[in-house]
């Protein structure tokens, strides 16, 4: 097991270094960093001096490792457009994105898994069929359209919910939260459901497919033959054995919620990192793009690691094999 964990950690570090390399290449070679920092009236000598100060004349590898070292300490350089440290910008946007992603993940899990179990157990029920049809629409409808439709119905026509922004936020010093005010909660509802819908349908379909497969296996037939109550078969035996693939996909999906929040944040003008990223693409603000890339990669790597460790908790066979 230790061996396995060590290998996974090593792989994660490799992924981070590879992504760091891409981020560095973007930062260094897409556009000229000096031109983006100084005005028109800077002389060539001043430019050369700045270039030397920033170490842009150093060998490639030195620059790369300096970039990685700075990034590991949270220093991503200055934003070209806003003239502020990138870390400061991201820090101010991070709470909004994480709260939105957390809310959507909770919705996706707590609605998706029960719906999946239900549709697997009552395959031909009317409710199951409508869930399945809805899920097909959920997969085919692009996220941004769901958001637009929600804004149209609940924001413009019914005027129940605010259509943009985060509402009032309470500043806790290092974290600004929308969970403590009424307008914060109201503003959260539509973006959170928009973001959750796709992951929810995916989780639901996955749980359903896995349940159906497990219910066909011999040990379930044997459990039936033993006369165990249906409830126990379904939840004690079947559900438990569907969990490994469900955890894998769900974990990966939770990571992509943070990335997909780019779209939802743009639709609802939610002041998070995703909106910052889109704005930075529009204005070719490379340091912000590079920092966002590294951060998302970091989230993904951490989530993947946790998912792999969860396997050991869920599947006893792995523990036996590896030790």
């Amino acid at each position, binding site marked *: 097991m230790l061996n396995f964990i060590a290998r996974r950690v090593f792989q994660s570090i*490799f*992924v981070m270094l*590879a*992504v760091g390399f891409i981020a560095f290449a*973007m930062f260094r070679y*897409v*556009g000229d960093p000096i031109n983006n920092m100084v005005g028109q009236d800077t002389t060539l000598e001043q430019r050369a001096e700045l270039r030397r100060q920033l170490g842009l004349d150093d060998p490639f590898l030195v620059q790369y490792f300096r970039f990685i070292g700075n990034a590991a300490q949270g220093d991503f350089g200055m934003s070209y457009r806003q003239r502020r440290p990138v870390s400061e910008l991201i820090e101010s946007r991070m709470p909004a994105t994480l709260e939105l992603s957390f809310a959507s993940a909770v919705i996706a899990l707590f609605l998706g898994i029960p719906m999946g179990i239900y549709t697997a157990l009552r395959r031909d029920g009317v409710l199951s069929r409508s869930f399945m049809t809805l899920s*097909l*629409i959920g*997969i*085919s*409808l*692009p*996220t*941004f*359209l769901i958001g*637009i*439709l929600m*804004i*149209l119905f609940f924001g*413009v026509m019914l005027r129940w919910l605010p*259509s943009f922004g985060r509402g009032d936020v309470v500043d806790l010093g290092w974290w600004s939260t929308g969970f403590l005010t009424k307008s914060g909660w109201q503003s959260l509802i539509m973006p959170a459901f928009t973001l959750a819908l796709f992951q929810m349908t995916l989780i639901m379909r996955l749980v359903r497919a896995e349940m159906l497969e497990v219910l066909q296996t011999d040990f379930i037939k044997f459990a039936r033959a033993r006369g165990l109550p249906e409830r126990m078969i379904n939840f004690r035996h079947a559900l438990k054995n569907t969990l490994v693939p469900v955890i894998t996909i769900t974990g*990966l999906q939770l*990571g*992509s919620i943070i*990335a*997909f929040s*780019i*779209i939802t944040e*743009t*639709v609802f003008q939610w002041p998070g990192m995703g909106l910052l*990223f*889109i704005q*930075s*693409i*529009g204005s*070719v603000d*490379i340091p912000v*793009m590079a920092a966002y*890339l590294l951060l*998302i*990669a970091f989230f*993904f*790597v951490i989530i*993947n690691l946790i998912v792999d460790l969860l396997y050991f908790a869920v599947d006893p066979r792995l523990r036996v094999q590896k030790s």
Partner: protein
Amino acid sequence: MTRNVLSRAYNSDIFYSFSHSPTAIVSAVVALLICLGALFAPLVSPHNPFDLATLDLLDANIPPIWSADGDSRFLLGTDDQGRDMLSAILYGSRISLLVGLASVLFSLVVGVSLGLISGYAGGRVDSVIMRIADVQLSFPAILIALLIDGIARGLLPRHLHDSLSLYVLIFAIGISGWVQYARTVRGATMVERNKEYVQAARLIGMRPFTILRRHILPNVLGPVLVIATIHLAVAIITEATLSFLGVGIPPTTPSLGTLIRIGNSYLFSGDWWISIFPGIALVLLALSVNLLGDWLRDALNPKLR
């Protein structure tokens, strides 16, 4: 000869399964209608949305024909520049389909080639290609497409960017989707590589490239077809999403996503039709392609029969 092919097609399992699946027939008809409408847009659309001479800003933001302020010239109303929505949608689905098909083709060629090489060569080549695939697979395709678009913006001069945006988009979406093809083809190639006909071909001294192209490729293409169909729906939606986010097709030659983006800013003044109609067209297109892909996967998989 043609007759023989036709009768063989008519008697095939695929056709049988198709004619007995109402979902497949309906979605094929819908997809075909949209494709024909897009292909013949200059012939069937009532106006030319790109002809600046016929546009009149006084015609801007007219609601569809059935509402009180509708205009009989514009069936689905007009957008903020006075373009007829129906024509704009027909021309827009043309661009959406073009980008979708081209990027699927691009992913397919890159993915299948790398998959074949990876599966046949094995060893170090295989592990390098698959490591790259692993790293890429750990990010959502949309993020990769966004990044490539952002980098292209930085590298290209501003005046070139708008005219090249179509190709940048195809490249970005294409690159973001190759991994799935490569993985599937690699797996199938590793199985085929050890079969006798491949060994025989190797024995008679055929070059690896010829073996891959003439012998292995035809045997691994089945699943690729299914992936390509489902990927087409994904690519169309990705294009629409990027254009909606403002990093895709510029508003001068709008795709469906660009039209929705234009309409989005008029949503609060009640002009819902500018984004809702292109949205419906997009969903119909994506849904019908998706359903066709689902059907094809089931029809080609003998285990499910």
